[in-house]
C-alpha cells in the first residue's frame, strides 16, 4: 500500500492559540481514517489546511508524494481531492441536481462556456451520483428548501462528482438523525471499498466512528495524542481521559454533535 496523503509537522496558530500543533500522519490508499477530538481541538483547521482554505504556519502536505501546501483549494480539487464542509456550503439558488452538475461542468473545464444550457449538461451523470447518496427523488427540488441532513448528502454527491482519489469530510453527519448517520457512514464505507477512494473524516458520534473507521487519530488542543486501530483507541487511557475529562462520553446521545458549530471560511 502507498500513502495517498502525507502530512508532516503541520501547524497553524491564530495569534497565541496553536490551533494545530505539529501534526504528522499519513493516509493509505483505500483507507477510511477518522480524526476525532473534542470541540475546538483543531479538526476543521486541519481540514482547511489540507484543502488549501487556510495557509499553514508550518509543515507540509503531500498528495501522492507531491507537495500541495500553498496551493489554492481549486488547484487541490483539480488534483483529485474532494471535501465536504462542517457547515454545508451549497448553491441555494440552484436545484439539487444543478449543484452536482456545476461540479461536473467544472470538472470538464466548461465553466467559461456560454453556448449550451447548463441545466442540460451531464444531467444523467449527476442523477446517478444523487442516486448513490439516495437523493435522486429530490433532484429537481430547490436547494434552499432542503432539510439539513439532505444538504449533507447532497454535499457528498457534489464532492464525489469529479471522482476524487481523496475525500475529506468534516463532520459529514452533523445535524442528522442517528439512523441517517449510520446509513451515511455505511455509504461512505461502501464508496471507499468499491471505488478505491481514500477518506479522512471527523465525527463526534463514537458509535459511527468505531463501526466504520479503519484507523482513528485523536486530536486534542491541536496535538495528535493517539493514532491507532479502533481497539487501541478504545482502550487508550489518555484518550479516555480527554473525552471523560471534557465531559464527553463514548455515547452518541451525549455527544456534542448538536452544539453550535463554527467554521472558518477560506480567505
Amino acid at each position: 500500500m502507498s500513502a495517498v496523503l502525507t502530512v508532516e509537522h503541520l501547524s497553524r496558530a491564530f495569534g497565541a492559540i496553536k490551533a494545530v500543533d505539529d501534526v504528522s500522519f499519513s493516509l493509505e490508499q483505500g483507507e477510511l481514517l477518522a480524526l476525532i477530538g473534542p470541540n475546538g481541538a483543531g479538526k476543521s483547521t486541519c481540514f482547511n489546511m489540507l484543502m488549501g482554505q487556510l495557509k499553514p504556519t508550518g509543515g507540509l502536505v503531500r498528495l501522492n508524494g507531491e507537495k500541495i501546501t500553498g496551493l489554492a483549494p481549486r488547484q487541490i480539487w483539480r488534483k483529485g481531492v474532494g471535501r465536504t464542509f462542517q457547515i454545508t456550503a451549497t448553491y441555494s439558488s440552484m436545484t439539487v441536481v444543478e449543484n452536482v452538475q456545476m461540479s461536473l461542468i467544472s470538472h470538464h473545464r466548461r465553466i467559461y462556456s456560454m453556448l449550451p444550457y447548463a441545466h442540460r449538461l451531464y444531467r444523467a451523470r449527476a442523477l446517478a451520483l444523487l442516486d448513490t447518496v439516495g437523493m435522486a427523488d429530490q433532484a429537481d427540488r430547490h436547494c434552499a428548501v432542503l432539510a439539513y441532513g439532505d444538504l449533507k448528502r447532497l454535499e457528498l454527491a457534489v464532492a464525489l462528482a469529479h471522482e476524487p482519489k481523496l475525500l475529506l469530510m468534516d463532520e459529514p453527519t452533523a445535524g442528522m438523525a442517528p439512523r441517517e448517520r449510520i446509513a451515511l457512514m455505511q455509504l461512505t464505507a461502501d464508496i471507499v471499498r468499491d471505488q478505491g477512494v481514500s477518506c479522512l473524516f471527523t465525527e463526534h458520534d463514537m458509535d459511527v466512528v468505531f463501526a466504520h473507521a479503519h484507523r482513528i487519530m485523536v486530536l486534542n488542543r491541536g496535538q495528535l495524542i493517539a493514532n491507532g486501530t479502533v481497539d487501541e483507541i478504545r482502550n487508550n487511557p489518555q484518550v479516555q481521559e480527554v473525552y471523560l475529562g471534557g465531559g464527553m462520553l463514548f455515547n452518541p446521545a451525549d455527544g456534542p454533535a448538536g452544539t453550535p458549530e463554527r467554521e472558518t471560511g477560506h480567505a
Partner: protein
Amino acid sequence: MGLFLAQLLTGLANAGALFMVASGLSLIFGVTRIVNFAHGSFYMLGAYVGYTLMQVLPGMVGFWGAILLAGIIVGLIGVIVEICVLRPVYSAPELFQLVATFGVILVIQDLTLMIWGAEDLLGPRAPGLKGVVRILDEPVPQYDLALIAITPFVAFALWYLISKTRVGILVRAATQDREMVGALGVNQSWLFTGVFFLGCALAGLGGAVQLPKGGADLLMDFNILTSVFVVVVIGGMGSLPGAYLAAVIISVLNVFGVSYMPQSTLVLMFVVMVVVLIFRPFGLFGKEEVAGEHGQVGEPERPIKPAGLRVRMLVLAGLVLLGLIPVLGSNFAEVLATDILIFCLFAASLHFMLGQGGLVSFGHAAFFGGGAYVAALLVTYADTPMELAMVLAPLGAGLAAVVIGWVCLRSTGVYFAMLTLAFAQLLWSLVFQWGDITGGDDGLVNIWPSAWASSNTVFFYLALVICVGGILLLRHAAHSPFGYALRAARDSARQAEAMGIHTKRIQWVAFAFAGAMAGIAGGLFVFSKGSVFPNELEIARSFDALIVVFLGGVKTLSGGWVGGASFEAVKDYLTRFEYWRLALGLLIIGVVILAPEGIVGSLRKLGERIGFLNAAEDKR
C-alpha cells in the same frame, strides 16, 4: 511658507463640515447597513434650514443657535424619513433600501426648490468672526480658525457618546453584531431610528456650519455625496477616527490640488481612494466585511429555467408590437422607443453582473458613457464609419472594464461598489477636464449614423435588433455554464473555490462582459443622439441603472429590461411637469414599499396566483 500654512489651515477648516457629514453616514451604515444615498440631501437641508434660522435669530448667539437648531431639525426630518420610508423595507433584499434613499433624494430636491426657490443663497457671515487673522503675512479667515477649533470638539463629543455612554455601547454592539442587540432585549427599531437621527443631525450641522463659506444651493446634495462616500470609504465604513483622518486628508489635498494642479482637482481624491483601497481593501480603519454579514433577507432566490412556451409567445407578441411602432406610431414614438431600448440594454447589462454575480456596481455608467465616448472620439478624430465605431465601442468599454474590474474586484461589498463609483468619476473628470480632446462640458457633437441608417425608422429597427439581441444574449448567458458558475461564486464562494472555480476570475470576466454590453448601448446612444456629453458618465447615470435594476427585480431574470422600460417611460411622461422629481421620488418609494421583490418579482407572484405561470415546486 506662509502660503503653505494658510492653505493647510483652509484644508483643515473644510474638513470640519466634511467630517460631520461623513461621520453621520458612517454611523448609519455601521448600525443599519444602509447605504444612505440621501445623506447629501440632509446636508443640503441643513444649509437651507440654517440659512432661514439665521435670518430670524439675531447676533452671535442666534448664529450658533441657528446651526444647532438646524442640526436638530434635520435630524427630526431624518427620523420621519426613517419611520415612513425605511422601516417598511428593512426586511427587503440586501441593498434594496438604497433605492428608497434615492427616492428620498428626489423628493427633498423638489421640496427644497418649492420652499426656497431656485436661486443660490449667500450664507451670512458669522457675527464676531467676520475678519481675517494674519498668519505669517497670509490672511486666514477667523471663521476658518473657529471651525478648526470646533471640529475636534464635535469629534470628541461623538467619540464620548459612542464609547462612554450606554447608548453608545449599544450602538457599537449593533455595529458588530446586530442579532446580539436584539437578543439583549433592546428595541432594535428604535435604536435604528436613534442612529438615523444622530446621523442626519450631523449632516444638518455640517450643512449649516459651512454656510458662511459656501452658502446654500440645489446642487449641494450630489456635490458633497461623492466626497463623503470617498471619505467614509478611505477611513473605513463605520469608523469615526477613520472618517476624521480621511476628511482631513481629502480636504487638505483638495486645497493644494486647486492651487498646484488645477486640472486634477476632480480626479485627485479618487486616485487617493483607489491607492488606499489597493493596499487596504477595507479602508484605513475598516474591518473586512464578512461575506453574508448583511444577511440574505427575504425569500431565497429561485432556480432559473428557460422561459416556458407561454411566456415565449407573450414576448414574441410584444416584439411584434414593438416592430409595429413605426407603422402605427408617430416619429416621436420611434425616437422614444429607441431611447428606451438603449436604456434597457444598459440596465440589462448591469442586471447581469448584479443579479447573477452579486456584484453591486455604483459606476456602471463608466462603460455606457465610455462606449459612447469611444465611438464619438473615433468619429470625430478618425472619421470612422458608424458600423466600425459601433463595434469598437463595446471593445473599448470592455477593455476599460477589464482594467477597472481588476482593481475593483480586490474589494468586496460596499467597498467594491465605491471603487466602481470612483472609477466612473475618474473617467468623468478625465472627460470633463480634458476639454481639448473631449470637448469638456460642450461634449462631442455631429456624430450621425451612416446614410442608410439616418432615418429615425431605420435607426429604430437597428436599435431594436441590437438591443433585443443583446438582452437575449445576456439572458442566455445566465442559463449557460458561465452564468451558473457566476451564480455559484455568489451563492457560496467557499464551495465554488473547492470545486475548481476561480471565483474572482469568473467575476472579472462577468464584469468585462457586462461592461462590453453597456458599451454596445453607449455606441448606439451616440448615433441616436448625434452627440455625447460628460453627463453620460455621471453618477446620476449609474444610479439610474442601479435603481432600475432594483425596481425591476434583482432576483428575477428580466428585472433589468423591464425596470428600464418602465422607468424610462414613466420618466419621459413625468418630466413634462414642473415638480417631476417629487413625483418620481414618491413613485420609487412607493414601489420599494409595496413591491419589495421588484416589478417582475411581484408580477410573477401575481401570475402564479391567477394560474398563468406554474408556481415554484417548493414552497417554504
